[in-house]
């Protein structure tokens, strides 16, 4: 076979599947530069959380997006890695072992992988309901164990440690947030690159094939089960890395890191970002962390808005934010993207006002119902008013109604412009 392949001498297409370095270099530079732009401590804390979530979400998407396995208990693998790292950290402190902190996440990764192998051995025989239920069951089980096996999980208060008691690593003691930031960034780049490369290996390609059609894959010589198992294992490894970084960053792990609500959040993050593209979970993790940290400072109802956004994504943009971005590629290719600008402005600005108006009404109802008696004054959008008087209600309702009406009337134009922009230029006119 290979002999005939040589004689036909088809030109090798290097560009078709080659690994472009551009985005990776940009990402690395951004990671380096960001702490100089957002240099206060709270921004760095947010970014640390963000990058850990990025690793976790990418690892989760190895299952959901690339392997077609819906896991409801994936926080377990991150949590397990985290707990182990916490123990290792304390061990290093107690016995004065020369273990540099930067390699600590590796222990978490290996432990996460080991645990994934254990669970994967039973759960990966199918990808459907059975897999999802096992993942949910294991999640509940481990979360329950956290109060039973106190020696490992530390009961209700969890376990904590101190990352600075180890030996300094090239003089760095990891006292400052910024030092931890660069440690996390290093692991982020390494993990993301490895996960990307994994998707380009034979087993990574077959994960896609098994996701699409497990039966056909069987008749190509691959056991669907083993392909799933390897994906599961790799996913567990990177979840464990994320857990290790979590341990370093927060210096405490509790039951909360293992439970189903954490597992639910990572599903939400990944889906929000888009499971169909490798970079989807990255966007999802960034967007969600911003919602979680920045929005939660502004309103108690941030989870409500995050939930609404998730619902809207599932219903209207199943490709997630990444899908939304990639939808625009053809328009740019046809050099038609300009045609979309005005229709977008005309529809999206009133659309945004509608959304903000509805949010304002939600906030007002919340304030009206839940603020302490006598506290009638509330502030939204830099405006302070009395939530018990009629006027603000009327104003907000009217603005929202008008904005919604404008959105509705301009939407058809946007749709038309969209169709126009996505027509190849040879057929599209100047109009």
């Amino acid at each position, binding site marked *: *076979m*290979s002999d*005939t*392949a*040589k004689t*036909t001498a*088809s030109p*090798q*297409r290097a560009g*078709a*599947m*080659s*690994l472009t370095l551009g985005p990776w270099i940009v990402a690395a530079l951004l990671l380096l530069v960001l702490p100089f732009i957002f240099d206060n401590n709270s921004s760095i804390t947010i970014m640390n959380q963000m990058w850990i979530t990025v690793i976790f979400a990418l690892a989760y998407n190895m299952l959901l997006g690339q392997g077609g396995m819906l896991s409801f208990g994936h926080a377990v693998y991150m949590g397990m890695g985290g707990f182990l790292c916490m123990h290792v950290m304390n061990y290093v402190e107690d016995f004065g072992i020369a273990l540099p902190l930067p390699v600590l996440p590796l222990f978490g990764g290996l432990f996460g992988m080991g645990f994934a192998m254990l669970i994967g051995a039973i759960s990966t025989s199918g990808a459907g309901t059975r897999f999802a239920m096992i993942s949910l069951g294991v999640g509940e089980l481990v979360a329950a164990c956290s109060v039973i096996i106190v020696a490992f999980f530390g009961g209700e208060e969890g376990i904590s440690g101190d990352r600075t008691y180890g030996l300094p690593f090239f003089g760095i003691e990891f006292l400052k947030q910024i030092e931890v930031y660069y440690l996390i960034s290093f692991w982020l780049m390494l993990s993301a690159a490895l996960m990307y*490369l*994994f998707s*380009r*290996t*034979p*087993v*990574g*390609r*077959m994960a*896609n*094939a098994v996701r*699409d*059609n497990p*039966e*056909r*894959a*069987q*008749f*190509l*010589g*691959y*056991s669907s089960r*083993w*392909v799933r198992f*390897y994906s599961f294992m*790799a996913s567990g490894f990177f979840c464990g890395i994320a857990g290790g970084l979590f341990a370093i960053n927060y210096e405490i792990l509790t039951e909360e890191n293992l439970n189903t609500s954490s597992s639910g959040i990572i599903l939400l993050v990944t889906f929000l970002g888009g499971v169909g593209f490798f970079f989807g979970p990255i966007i999802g993790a960034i967007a969600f962390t911003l919602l979680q940290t920045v929005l939660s400072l502004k309103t108690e109802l941030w989870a409500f808005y995050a939930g609404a956004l998730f619902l809207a994504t599932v219903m209207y943009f199943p490709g997630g934010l990444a899908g939304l971005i990639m939808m625009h590629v053809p328009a740019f290719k046809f050099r038609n993207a300009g045609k979309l600008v005005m229709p977008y402005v005309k529809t999206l600005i009133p659309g945004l006002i509608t959304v903000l108006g509805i949010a304002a009404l939600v906030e007002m109802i919340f304030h009206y119902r839940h603020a302490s008696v006598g506290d009638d004054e509330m502030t939204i959008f830099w405006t302070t008013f009395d939530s018990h008087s009629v006027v603000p209600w009327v104003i907000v309702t009217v603005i929202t109604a008008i904005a919604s009406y404008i959105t509705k009337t301009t939407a058809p134009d946007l749709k038309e412009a969209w169709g126009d922009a996505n027509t190849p230029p040879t057929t599209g006119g100047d109009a």
Partner: protein
Amino acid sequence: MSAALELSGLTKSFGKAEIIRGVDLSIGKGERHAIIGPNGAGKSTLFNLITGRFAQTAGTISLHGRNLAGLEPYQINRMGLSRSFQITNIFPAMTVFENVRCSLLWSMGYKYSFWNLVSRSKALTEGAEQILEQINLTARRNLPAGVLSYAEQRALEIGITIAGGADVIMLDEPTAGMSHSETDYIVELIRKVTENKTLIMVEHDMGVVFGLADYISVLVYGEIIATGRPEEVRGNAKVQEAYLGEALEDEH
């Protein structure tokens, strides 16, 4: 000529219903063997038994003299038997190229490796491109397989089936639902890609069967009532009565 595939006393029951009722069949190496019969005769079930999709109730199946009992489809595939399906069975969300490349991975020895990058393998890329050339889908290379026309999807499925270099190829109704010109195209394709290989196919189109097959077996109600050269089978009174008279009339 030693047998590529040998069935003896093969039986399959679903509950009380006996679908395959003691099939004995020997298919020689390099033979093009068609299995024909009326609807519900058990042709697809027979295929599913041979390829390990179902487990037989009794009897043995051996491929190149090795018993297939208890083996999973992927294990049977690795022994050099590959099949297509009656209902198109491809990877719809992956590109055409990717479909073919995935079907080359195992046979090229990549197994479950996660230390090779598929795009770096020249042999893999060239192998897949060669298959695409053979099935005339080079121009469709980068399209998702799901958007191809029906005939193209069928061609792709044949490509996937032969890509792994299996020497026993089983095709389940490769021309089902095709127009005349599409059928001609697929038949030519089958002839081309199964050269020097053992071909076993289920087919309803008698034109295709008599044009392509060296041997024909007639399966009626789970039993093979005749096996032989096309002209022998055509002349067989039992076959005429049970099936072929009707089927040949339909052709006209």
